[in-house]
C-alpha cells in the first residue's frame, strides 16, 4: 500500500510494504511531527517539577521548623508556599498536561502536526510567564489569591502563551480526518476552552474590574476548584480514556456512559467551589448550591468510573507489566477517591470541622497529584519512547518511581486528612486555646514531610530517567520496557 492513499499530505516515504499497513506509517509520521513541541513542553515541565518539589520540601519543613531561614525575605513562608503551588500548577501540571494533549490531539485528529511554531512559541512564552510569575511572587509581588498569585505582567504573558496553544488545538481540530470524534477529544477540546474561561473570569473579576468585598473570595475559590476540575481533571480523564483502551487493545465499554459522564462533568463541576467557604459571610444558598453540585458530581464519577472499570475488566493483570497502565489506572481510581473525599469534606456537618484545616490541602493534593499527575506520568511513559525512538532504560527505575509516588501521595493524603480532622476538632473545642489546636497537628505535619521525601525521591528518579531518554540513552529494542519482563513475554504489546 501507499501512504498517499491515506491522504497524508507528505512526501511519499521510501518504506512502503515493509513497514506494514498504512495505519502504522501514519502514526509514525504523526509521532515524528509532534516530537519537538511535545518534548519541549515535557522537558520544561520536568524542570519545573524538580523546582516545585524542592520548594515543596522546604515549605513542608517550615511548617514544623518555622525558623528555618526565616530571616531571608524571599524565603519566608508567605512567599515560598505560593511559589511552590504556582510552579506545580502552571509549571509542571499545565505544561505536562499540554504536552500530552498535543500528542493526543495529533494522534486522534489523524493528521501530522500543523503550525508547530505556534506551539514552540507557546512553550517559550509559557516558560517566561511562569518564570516571571515565580520571580514576582518571591520578590513580594504576589496578588494573594490562591493559584492566581502571579502578578499581572506574568499573568498576561501566560494568557498570550495559552492563546497560542489553544488556537493551535482548534486549528488542528479543523484539519482532522475521519468521521469519528473520540471521547478523548471531547475532553481535550473542552479543557482548551474552559481554561481561558476560568482564567479570564478570575483575572477580570479579581484584578481588572474587581468585584466588591467578600465576593472576591468566592471568585477566587471558584477559580481554584474549577481549575482542578475543568482544566486538570478534563485533561486527565481524556488521557485515561485514550491510554486504557489503547494499552489493553479493547474498545471502551460504552459510548453512552462516556457521553453522560462528559456532559454531567462539564455541567456540575462548574458549579462547585463555593463549598470551601462554609460558615463564611455569604448567602447560604450560594454555598449550598455548590454543595448540591458537588453531590451531583457523583454522577460523572460513577459513570466514568464504571466505564473505565468495565473496560479494564479481565485485563487488570496487565498492570503488572505495563508502566503506562499502572500509572493511568492508579490515577483513574484516584479520581473516584478524590471526588468522594471532596464530597465528604463539603457537607456542612463535616465541613464545620475540617474547613480551613489541613484537610483541604489533602483534597488539592489528591486532585492534582494522585489523580492528574499520576495519569500524566502514565502517558509520558507511553509517549516519550515514541518521540525519541528509544525504550525506557531501566524497569527498576520505573517501579521505584511508581511505588515512591504511590506510597508518598497515599501517606501525604492520610496524614493531612487525619491531621485536618484532629485540627478541626480541637479548633471546635472552646476550652482549648487556638495555639493548642495548631500543636495537635504537628505530628501529622512531620509525617507529611516524610511523605514529601518519598515524592522528592520519585521525582528525581523520573527526571533522571527522562533525561536519559532525551539524550538518546534509552534502550534500542523492539520490546517495550515492561515492569516484569520475564513474565511479560507472552502478554503481548504495549
Amino acid at each position, binding site marked *: 500500500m501507499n501512504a498517499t492513499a491515506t491522504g497524508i499530505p507528505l512526501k511519499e516515504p521510501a518504506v512502503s510494504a515493509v*513497514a506494514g499497513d498504512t495505519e502504522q506509517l501514519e502514526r509514525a509520521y504523526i509521532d515524528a511531527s509532534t516530537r519537538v513541541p511535545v518534548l519541549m513542553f515535557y522537558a520544561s515541565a520536568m524542570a519545573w517539577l524538580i523546582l516545585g518539589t524542592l520548594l515543596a520540601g522546604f515549605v513542608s519543613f517550615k511548617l514544623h521548623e518555622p525558623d528555618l531561614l526565616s530571616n531571608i525575605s524571599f524565603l519566608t513562608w508567605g512567599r515560598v508556599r505560593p511559589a511552590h503551588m504556582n510552579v506545580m500548577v502552571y509549571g509542571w501540571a499545565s505544561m505536562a498536561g499540554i504536552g500530552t494533549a498535543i500528542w493526543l490531539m495529533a494522534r486522534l485528529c489523524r493528521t501530522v502536526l500543523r503550525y508547530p511554531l505556534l506551539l514552540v512559541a507557546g512553550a517559550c512564552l509559557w516558560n517566561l510567564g511562569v518564570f516571571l510569575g515565580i520571580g514576582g511572587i518571591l520578590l513580594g509581588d504576589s496578588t494573594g489569591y490562591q493559584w492566581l498569585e502571579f502578578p499581572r505582567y506574568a499573568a498576561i504573558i501566560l494568557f498570550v502563551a495559552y492563546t497560542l496553544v489553544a488556537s493551535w488545538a482548534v486549528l488542528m481540530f479543523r484539519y482532522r480526518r475521519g468521521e469519528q470524534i473520540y471521547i478523548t477529544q471531547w475532553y481535550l477540546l473542552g479543557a482548551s476552552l474552559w481554561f481561558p474561561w476560568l482564567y479570564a473570569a478570575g483575572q477580570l473579576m479579581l484584578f481588572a474590574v474587581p468585584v466588591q468585598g467578600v465576593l472576591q473570595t468566592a471568585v477566587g475559590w471558584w477559580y481554584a476548584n474549577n481549575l482542578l476540575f475543568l482544566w486538570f481533571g478534563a485533561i486527565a480523564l481524556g488521557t485515561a480514556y485514550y491510554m486504557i483502551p489503547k494499552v489493553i487493545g479493547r474498545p471502551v465499554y460504552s459510548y453512552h456512559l462516556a457521553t453522560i459522564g462528559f456532559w454531567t462533568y462539564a455541567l456540575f463541576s462548574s458549579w462547585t467551589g463555593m463549598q470551601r467557604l462554609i460558615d463564611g459571610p455569604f448567602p*447560604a444558598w450560594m454555598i449550598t448550591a455548590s454543595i448540591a453540585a458537588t453531590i451531583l458530581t457523583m454522577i460523572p464519577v460513577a459513570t466514568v468510573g464504571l466505564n473505565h472499570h468495565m473496560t479494564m475488566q479481565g485485563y487488570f493483570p496487565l498492570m503488572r507489566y505495563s508502566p503506562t497502565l499502572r500509572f493511568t489506572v492508579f490515577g483513574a481510581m484516584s479520581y473516584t477517591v478524590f471526588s468522594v473525599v471532596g464530597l465528604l469534606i463539603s457537607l456542612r456537618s463535616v465541613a464545620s470541622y475540617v474547613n480551613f484545616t489541613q484537610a483541604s490541602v489533602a483534597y488539592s493534593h489528591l486532585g492534582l497529584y494522585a489523580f492528574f499527575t499520576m495519569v500524566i506520568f502514565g502517558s509520558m511513559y507511553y509517549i516519550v519512547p515514541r518521540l525519541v525512538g528509544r525504550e525506557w532504560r531501566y524497569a527498576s527505575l520505573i517501579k521505584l518511581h511508581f511505588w515512591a509516588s504511590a506510597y508518598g501521595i497515599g501517606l501525604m493524603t492520610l496524614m493531612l486528612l487525619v491531621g485536618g480532622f484532629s485540627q478541626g476538632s480541637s479548633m471546635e473545642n472552646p476550652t482549648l486555646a487556638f495555639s493548642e489546636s495548631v500543636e495537635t497537628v504537628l505530628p501529622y505535619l512531620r509525617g507529611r514531610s516524610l511523605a514529601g521525601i518519598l515524592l522528592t525521591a520519585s521525582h528525581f528518579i523520573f527526571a533522571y530517567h527522562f533525561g536519559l531518554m532525551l539524550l538518546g540513552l534509552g534502550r534500542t529494542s*523492539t520490546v517495550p520496557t515492561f515492569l516484569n519482563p520475564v513474565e511479560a513475554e507472552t502478554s503481548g504489546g504495549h
Partner: protein
Amino acid sequence: MNDEPKSPARIGQGMDYGEQADVQQVHAAVQREKREPRVGAEPLSIWLIAIYGLAIFFAGAYLGRYSGNFSSGGLDPMGAPPPAKKAAGGPAGGEQVAELSPRDRGKKIFAANCQTCHQATGQGVPGQYPPLAGSEFTNGGSRRMGMIVLKGLQGPVKVKGQQYGTAVMQPWDKTLTDQKIADVMTYERSDWGNSASPVTAEQVAALRKELASHPESFTEHDILAAPDEDIPGGGAPAGGAPPKPGEAAKPGQPPKP
C-alpha cells in the same frame, strides 16, 4: 522485522518536525501498538440510573434544606430570612437579631474562661475549685464576687461548709473587659439555680477603679472584710431602674414585624 539498528545520532542532529529520515524506519513502538481506541455501545445499567436518581434526590433535598430560603442576606442555612428586611427598621434591625442577651454572652465567656475549673455544671471540683452553684459568694452581693473575679483569690476558702483552696484563682482584670466581666457574672448569678441580681458594666468599672491600687490577689480574709452588698452605681438591681441602652433590653426575641 524491524531489526535494523536505529541511528544512534538521531537526537541532537538538528532534525526537526516533519522529519523524514527516521520515519522510514517505523519505530518499533508504533508497529507493535494496538489500534487506536474505539468505543463500544453497551447500554446503561439500571443500577447506574438508580444512582443518578439518588444523587439528584439528595442534591435537591440538600439544596432545599440548607438554602436559607434563597434570600440574598440570609447567612443562616436553616432558613429564617433576616427579619431586618421586613421590619423596615433599616440596618439597625439586622444587628438587633444578632445581638445576644448579656446572660447568653456570659455563658460563652464562662465556657471559654471559667468552665475548665468551675465545670459546666458550676459544681467545681471537691477540694480544689469551689462550686458556683448555690455558693454564698455567687448569690450574695455583687461586690464580694466582683472582687474575686477582678483580682483573683488565693489561700484556703470555705464555701457551702466545705474547705477549698489548693488551687489559685487567677485575676481577670487584665484579660476581660468590664462588659465581659459583667456578662459572665450576670450569667453565673442566674444559672444552676442561682438567682441574684444582674451586674452592669458600669458597676464593674466602678469596682475596678476602686480596686485599682490593690496589686495582688485577695485572700478569704480580705473578701469577708468587705461588706456583702451590691456594687453601687449600676442602677440595674432592684427592679425599677430602666435598663441601659444596649443592655438587657433585648432578650433575643425577634422584633415584631
